[in-house]
């Protein structure tokens, strides 16, 4: 291939600016950096009091994670700023100002090795506490309290087993001990290492209460243990964190922490025997309606029918995932339908959620009263649950689920029936 020899020629390319690039370009490069910094500043102003804020830990394990996390964020942030700084500098300093073709350098081994060594050392430094953190977070032995947690589309069930020594979640019940089954809000004592044993009845869910710990997947066919330890009484918000279908967004939960005395009171209340409503009241009618309309899926412990037989629910016959929330003491918790709606009116809810650590326990134990009940959402739910919370795409076509529903079906209840049920349910405490 012949080489065509030309006279010494400076490079000139038609489309390249031959005069030095204007200050407009410099300004726009600096603009880029400014956007970056501005964004950083703005992003620093976030929500105050976001209930699931992972940077505002309130429990031991969340705090451990945060202690590991924020220095690493700082390092990452500093590295980022250095990179932006260097790029900004380079882009300003070496822009085309009509200089000749630069040195055609191919590299510099020293720079390469230094910039491999630096990140390697940094990462090695990060790796050590990381591994330690992994091991310590996974230590679920020596629990003070064990709760069996089961996720299913689209709510959480809590089963407090009776331990060999007769305690339930570390508390000795005053009366006769029996397993306690609740849903939505998991009540635990403060300063106790609470270990959940979690699984699922259908698809993979994930149990996540950010202020107390990271998340752990709840996988059908497997049992995963995970720790929680609250330091203060209060209510801690959480959400299912593994995509689980239509109402994944409506599958929430809360962990409620009570001090030792309040927790004892809660346990004892949960174990109180069933009390039928007073004869002749709307609530008594509601009890009948409940038996006929609801009890085939929803269990209320101690409920007896007209013949005095205990009513035992059989949700596995009607619901694809096999269970429905136990409503025995519904009004001792203040959310329902997968913690998606409040049982309390707005003001009452705020009072409970915003209560200080000293007042919280007493307020929570009051439960829901006639005066503080959020009738609107509860009645809408009873009227037509699937339209309030998406639960299956085609309620007419239950072929693929063997005729079983997913979640609560539309029951075509009359307004009277709904009023009766509300009157009955408000007494479930």
């Amino acid at each position, binding site marked *: 291939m012949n080489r065509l020899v030309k006279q010494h020629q400076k490079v000139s390319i038609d489309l390249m600016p031959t005069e030095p690039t204007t200050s407009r370009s410099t300004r726009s490069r600096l603009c880029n950096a400014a956007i970056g910094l501005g964004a950083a500043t703005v992003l620093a102003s976030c929500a105050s009091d976001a209930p699931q804020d992972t940077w505002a830990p309130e429990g031991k394990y969340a705090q451990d994670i945060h202690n590991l996390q924020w220095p690493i964020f700082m390092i990452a942030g500093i590295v980022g700023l250095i990179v932006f700084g260097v790029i900004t500098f380079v882009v300003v300093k*070496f822009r085309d100002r009509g200089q000749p073709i630069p040195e055609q350098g191919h590299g510099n081994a020293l720079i390469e090795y230094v910039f491999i060594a630096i990140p390697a050392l940094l990462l090695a430094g990060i790796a050590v506490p990381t591994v330690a953190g992994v091991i310590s977070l996974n230590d679920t032995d020596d629990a003070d309290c064990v709760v069996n947690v089961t996720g299913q589309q689209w709510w959480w069930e809590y089963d407090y087993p009776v331990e060999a020594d007769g305690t339930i979640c570390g508390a000795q019940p005053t009366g006769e001990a029996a397993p306690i089954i609740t849903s939505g809000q998991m009540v635990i004592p403060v300063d106790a290492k609470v270990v959940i044993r979690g699984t699922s009845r259908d698809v993979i869910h994930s149990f996540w209460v950010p202020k107390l710990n990271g998340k752990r997947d709840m996988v059908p066919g497997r049992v995963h243990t995970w720790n929680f330890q609250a330091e203060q009484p209060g209510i801690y918000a959480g959400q299912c964190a593994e995509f689980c279908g239509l109402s994944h967004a409506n599958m929430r939960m809360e962990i409620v922490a009570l001090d030792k005395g309040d927790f004892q009171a809660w346990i004892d209340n949960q174990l109180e025997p069933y009390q039928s409503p007073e004869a002749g009241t709307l609530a008594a009618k509601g009890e009948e309606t409940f038996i006929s309309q609801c009890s085939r899926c929803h269990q209320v412990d101690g409920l007896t029918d007209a013949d005095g037989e205990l009513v035992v629910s059989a949700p596995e016959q009607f619901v694809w995932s096999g269970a429905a929330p136990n409503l025995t003491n519904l009004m001792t918790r203040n959310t329902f339908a997968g913690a998606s709606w409040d049982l309390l009116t707005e003001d009452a809810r705020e009072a409970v959620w915003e209560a200080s650590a000293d007042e919280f326990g007493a307020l929570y134990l009051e439960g829901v009263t006639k005066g503080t009940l959020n009738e609107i959402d509860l009645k809408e739910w009873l009227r037509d649950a699937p339209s309030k919370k*998406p639960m299956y795409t085609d309620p007419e076509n239950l072929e693929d689920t063997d005729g079983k529903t997913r979640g609560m079906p539309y029951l075509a209840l009359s307004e009277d029936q709904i009023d009766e049920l509300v009157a009955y349910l408000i007494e479930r405490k």
Partner: protein
Amino acid sequence: MALIEKPAPIAVPDVATPSSSYGVFRRPVESTGWKSWLFTIDHKKLGIMYGAVALFFFLVGGFEALLIRLQLAGPDGTILDADKYNQMFTMHATTMVFLFVMPMAAAFANYFVPLQIGARDVAFPRINAFGFWCFLFGGIFLNTSWILGGAADGGWFMYAPNSSVPFSPTSGIDFWGLGLQITGIASLTGAINLIVTVINMRAPGMSLMKMPIFTWMILVVQFLLLFAIPVITVALFLLMFQRNFDATFFTVEAGADPLLWQHLFWIFGHPEVYILILPSFGIVSEVLPVFSRKPLFGYPLVVFSGAAIGFVGWGVWAHHMFASGLGPISVAVFSVATMAIAIPTGVKIVNWTMTLWGGKLIFTTSMLFAIGLIVQFTIGGLSGVTHAVAPSDTQQTDTYYIVAHFHYVLFGGAILGIFAGLYYWWPKVFGKLLDEKWGKWNFWTMIVGMNLTFGPMHVVGLQGQPRRMYVHTAARNGEGFFNITFWNLVSSIGAFILGIGVLLFFINVVISSRRSEKAPLDPWDARSLEWLTTSPPKEHNFDVIPTVGHLDEFFHLKYEDRGEGDHHDFQQVATAEELIAEQEANADEHIHLPSPSYWPIVLAFALPVMAYGVIYNLLLVPAGAAIALASMFGWSLEPHTASPADYDPPAPEGGAELEVSTNG
């Protein structure tokens, strides 16, 4: 309007081959018109088609994204119901990953790898065409689900058992699985083709370490595809058998382990993300040196780090599963491995920065996109390091913080790189430049839009907003003006700005195509061999296959070092125009190109037939298989070049004979 210059007429080949095909129809030998596109086996035409279809799907995926952001602009949105939303985010991700980024990389690879290595086509041109049609038919098949009962709704990661029939009864997931099998065939055949091309068809003198860096990155990507696609193939078959033939691979009651799907998917899925990013790394590694007027800093280490990323990338898949109950030892191991992979990635950032250092920087639109990638990808990479720390990841995973991370690396990395490549190589492919002023508007609007959309997601994620939620609600969004509700609105506005930015690209394309000025042969004073061609290149690419003596061979053809010892003084000794003229004067005399064929498109057509059969009527499966079998026979029995009898009227005598060393 023909975008490609009409090639010189092909003369009768002097190698006699079996005279006729066994096809029913005459072999398509047209060199102009729609038939020349439908039956082409020319890597350049295929590259353009890959690019055009990919950009179309980019708009589809973008539209899906805008609907998502509309739904999430405020709390308790009602634009999309839960079911539609689940379909929308599943298809948005699937479309962007499989129908945009991957085929766009294939577009660049198909067009430029042969040119960069001094070859006249890929090793197996008909297989190349087959791959393209598989991609197109697979993408169309996948999207017909929208009107055939609903699209897939299990997320692009399609976890079991949520992907089983009781939890997702429409055929959407079947469309998804089968569609991806079809596009997977495109990726696999493309991988084999490009690896053989790069290994076996380089110009004389081009050792592997003199090969352009883009081709190197593509080579690594093809190896990743070669080994990753079979794994997801297995997963998709298991899912298909589960859903359609009552197998129980993911039925927990029968004893199945849902984590099997996760492992299979992520063993594919993690190399997949390197498949998505490395081509853009390659593009940027080409663009930065050209517009810095100096070579890539540390070329061997950039090559090596690309290979290292490809290799180590196989060992980190379970970092997508840190919360899934793997056990502390696995989690710890994968956590450390994930940190390790940050090192070769960091090397690239250093090398790109050092390429700019001491250069003579020219800020064309392509260069802006390339520098944009460095900045944006760094953000994404650093957030990635924060989730390599497994305990932190248990707070971050499945939140918008992860969504922010991967959009920064995918949009800020892969897509900005793609746009850098589009602006850089457009004049070579189409003979016209894209307008620089519109280009800058395109760039800045996209940068502003991108950061407004995905920047706030870091915050809302860390503050507790999980992903894959069809609504967010005031109760979980916190107090204060700058709460989660506010940042979601900002993200949504940003998304529309980003959409406008993308639109500006297409406006630029239309406006630039209306202009009549032809681009110079070498508008950027580039460095690698694909620029030693006409714009667009002739059908046979090079009149003379160059003998390569250096990395950045094209630069060394134009510039001679007149300095002494350590002092270098590069002076221009030739322009691109002169080099091309010289080539034309010494053009090779015997250039045979393989002829177009319809077997690739016929064979590709058989696949969606079989796929529809699986969903609707099993009789279609053997019918499709029969078409496939017949096509494979027709294909094997067809000679590489058309016989004189295929031309009508008969082929002209004389003219340069074109010869090429290809098979397939």
